């Protein structure tokens, strides 16, 4: 079977030497919508970053579309966590989105052409921030900025979209816009891989779920049982879904108790 993303036996160490990911194997078919959950520090962001070569990995292979990362870069859209950004940088929303339309080959006096500007506008339209295009990023709210980062990834017209906590600390309007948009993109054929701390919300949105806590604990339909959660979170069950962890689990039946 053809996989859009094929990760085999991936092991990654943190700079300090601790193991972040150990022997993770995961395959994502075309058209999938995969949610990755796991405890804080369990290696979710490390997984995405090592896929994109932003962090070195010690063992394992990562293939996109059956090839290496470099020859697939123009098909991959990456949405990082917005909290890591310097929002004071003097740049407008449109300029941020335009950056992903720039050609790989460095040209002297590069200017954005009409098509690139149209692509950027279309991407901003999709996430509902076209009206903010000329605003400086420092005047955007958290949710608007997150949607801007998604628009930047969409301007590439990616076949695979990787998102790192796209709904963390955004307002509820932006959150529903983001979830609806991802739904729609997935229906149109974009393969999506999304990291989330919001276990409850994503289990009802995604097609598959993967649980990462150093190892790949579970990969399958979004239907978790206590064993997996127990294994994944140990006793730190309160890490799950903001204090309402049981909504992700099937109802306990009486005999089992």
């Amino acid at each position, binding site marked *: 079977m053809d996989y859009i993303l094929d990760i085999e036996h991936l092991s990654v160490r943190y700079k300090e030497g601790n193991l972040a990911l150990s022997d993770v194997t995961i395959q994502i078919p075309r058209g999938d919508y995969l949610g990755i959950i796991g405890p804080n520090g369990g290696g979710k962001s490390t997984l995405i970053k090592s896929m994109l070569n932003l962090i070195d990995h010690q063992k394992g292979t990562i293939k996109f579309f059956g090839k290496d990362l470099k020859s697939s870069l123009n098909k991959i859209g*990456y949405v*990082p966590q917005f909290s890591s950004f310097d929002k004071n940088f*003097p740049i407008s929303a449109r300029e941020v989105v335009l950056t992903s339309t720039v050609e790989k080959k460095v040209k002297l006096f590069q200017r954005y052409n009409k098509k690139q500007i149209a692509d950027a506008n279309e991407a901003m339209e999709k996430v509902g921030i076209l009206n903010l295009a000329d605003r400086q990023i420092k005047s955007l709210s958290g949710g608007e900025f997150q949607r801007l980062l998604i628009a930047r990834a969409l301007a590439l017209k990616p076949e695979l979209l990787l998102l790192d906590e796209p709904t963390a600390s955004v307002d509820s309007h932006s959150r529903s816009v983001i979830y609806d948009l991802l739904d729609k993109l997935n229906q149109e054929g974009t393969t999506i891989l999304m990291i989330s701390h919001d276990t409850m919300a994503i289990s009802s949105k995604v097609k598959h779920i993967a649980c990462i806590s150093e190892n790949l604990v579970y990969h399958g339909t979004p239907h978790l049982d206590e064993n997996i959660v127990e294994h994944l979170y140990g006793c730190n069950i309160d890490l799950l879904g903001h204090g309402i962890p049981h909504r992700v689990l099937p109802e306990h039946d009486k005999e089992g108790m």
Partner: protein
Amino acid sequence: MINTILQYTFLQHAIVAIIFSSIVCGIIGVIIVEKKLILMTGGIAHTAYGGVGLGYLLQVNPMITTIIVAVAAALGIGEVQNKGGKQSDIVIAMLWSLGMALGIVFIAMAPGYPPNISSYLFGNILAVSTDNLIAMFILTVVILSIVVMFFNYWKIFLFDREFASLIGLNTKKFERILFILIALSIIVLMGAFGIIMLIAMLCAPAATAALYTDNFKSRMIIASLIGCLTSLIGLYLSYTLNIAASATIVICAVVNYLVTYIYKAKKQKNPTKASN
């Protein structure tokens, strides 16, 4: 004043030096202020003093050795900053002093009459030689053209380095070139403002411009104009009051920043009053 300028070459030199320095301060200053590379820039500038000493020791033009040492220091400090994590500011501080110490030792060991150290530390905009002006001109053109020719790429790289590498830009190369440009800017400013005061000239106009605009390009242009204007005012004041020119210019640049900052802060607090 105009007659005096026409009369004295040293004043003409000073004005030309102000123009070149202001362009560099506008462009590179905005970048280092925005990316918080000020400590690093200070480190490179002071380490470069080792290059001045080396020039006198080897009896070659100190400009050449200073450029070499400054570029090497910039790349070295850049590497330290990338790899060193929390240790990096300690290493930068040590290089900072080490460069100065080596400079002093080299000059002491150098044959012949020792140069005036304070002209390198504090600069003298009234004593910029024709050779120095030519070097300033060449370096300014190099800095200006590299930034302008790749302007959109610089913006991508400076805003989000991770993303820049994902769209296929060689971010390592961009970073090295940026560090080299910072080193070259230091050389441009060293003669006029000296190792110690050039940092203020890189920061003040850029920080002032940041209070006026949030557009990257306009910020560079405004910073250059502010640098030029405050320098000319400083030069005029120093001439009429008969005080040290470079120091007066630095004071003007910093005071201009403070006044603008207070004015803007007041206006923000009390928008109706300011518009009335």
